[in-house]
């Protein structure tokens, strides 16, 4: 993991817990790594970081898309609730009018 950006990987510094000779061990491993593997591994780390960057970008695109769909769904949910309440009031009004009409019909009879 890269200490500056946790979404990227980077070189891991050598360390040693050995007393007195620890710094020597670290220095030796740095030199040996520099000769044997560093220039082989670094390009692979760079390739991997490019790949991680693309995956992160795709992840961001998908997250954005899901969030947009989620917001649209929430907005539709509110509109549906408004409509259902409006229909409920219209049904009540209709029942009132029907009962008035029934009373009028009975009076007429």
């Amino acid at each position, binding site marked *: 993991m890269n200490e500056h950006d946790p979404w990227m990987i980077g070189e891991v510094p050598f360390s040693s817990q050995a007393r007195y000779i620890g710094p020597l061990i670290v220095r030796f491993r740095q030199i040996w790594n520099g000769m044997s593997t560093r220039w082989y591994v670094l390009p692979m780390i760079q390739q991997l970081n490019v790949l991680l960057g693309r995956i992160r970008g795709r992840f*961001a695109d998908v997250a954005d898309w899901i969030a947009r769909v989620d917001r649209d769904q929430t907005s539709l*949910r509110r509109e549906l*609730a408004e409509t259902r309440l409006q229909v409920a009031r219209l049904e009540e009004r209709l029942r009132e009018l029907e009962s008035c009409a029934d009373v009028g019909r009975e009076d007429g009879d």
Partner: protein
Amino acid sequence: MRIAYVSPLPPLRTGIADYSAALLPYLARVFDRVDVYATERSDVLVDGPDVHPVGDLPERWRTYDLCVYHIGNNQSFHRSIYELALEYPGVVVLHDYFLHHLLAGLTIGGGDFRGYLREVAYARGAAGAELAYEAAVDWAHMPLFDEPLNSRLIDVSLGVLVHSRYAFRLAKSHHPGARIAYIPAPYGPEMPDDLSRDELGLPEGALLVTLAGMPNTAKRTDVVMQAIAALGSRFPQLRCAVIGDLLQGLGEPGVQDLQGRLLEIGYVPSLARFLAFLNASDVIVNLRYPSVGEASALTLRAMALGKPVVVSNTGWYADLPSDVCVKLDHTFDDGEDAGRLADALADLFAHPDATRLMAERGRSYVQQEHNSERVASEYEAVLRAWRGALYG
């Protein structure tokens, strides 16, 4: 106009239950019908409106002009109300503007990380999804006080009520198209038990600073302890009464430094007795930093009793007039904040006439601004206007 009022009720230990108990009798006078739906754990009926379990609301919600949902951060009391507010939209009353604690509890608290990620992504898009992931794997702090996580609830609701101008400004800036209104939090009237300090077990000659509530790091209890300890040599009669469980989780040094000045009262179930403790105090300290945009019932109660109050200069507290209480600016440095609080308390003790005048102004302010009858009228005006917009 027919209202479904969905809220926790006493004896649940939440300020929102007390709020509803105080307001409901007045709301019952201004609306044609108010049915109360209480959370499952509530078994006390209030006088006046009918009370039903929240589980009965889904089959009846269309019979009301509006459902009014009271939302706070405690998931024990608000889980079912929050879920109902999303499923059967109505008007939400945001007692806390920031709902991050509630949402984190409802998702991560139940092992549902994807639910948390979805909520933060809803609020902030891809950047939010990354932030949620980083918080879950400990690469970053959970943004409890930076991201309100209330967008879904505000977007789905037919209207939003808040109790602070601070919350109103935030809500309007983030949701300019939403129906949002500010209504002051209601206060009482509430009467304290007529008990002397002796009857309450408090020392007669003490200079008594009181704090109260449930444990919460934002209440800065450790800062108050440091300030009391610092003032001990100047004011030998100074004592600090702590009502409730505020000392839970507090660092030992903070308590030990008080050398016998601490009076642990514990939880006081009776509101009248709780008020008697406030009434017997010389100063009430109620710090909150950072704030989640809440209005403080404790502050209103203390001010209504004519007690000098020290609060944090943030959120709802910052909107209080400067001449009715002491408002403390905070840093994130406990030592610095404790020094400022100690100076403020010393100033109050040194100028008793000015302190009394400030407390009297506080009492008048609460009586005028937070009068329950007036608050109920404002509820009526706002909800009738929103009903008109909805049904034409």
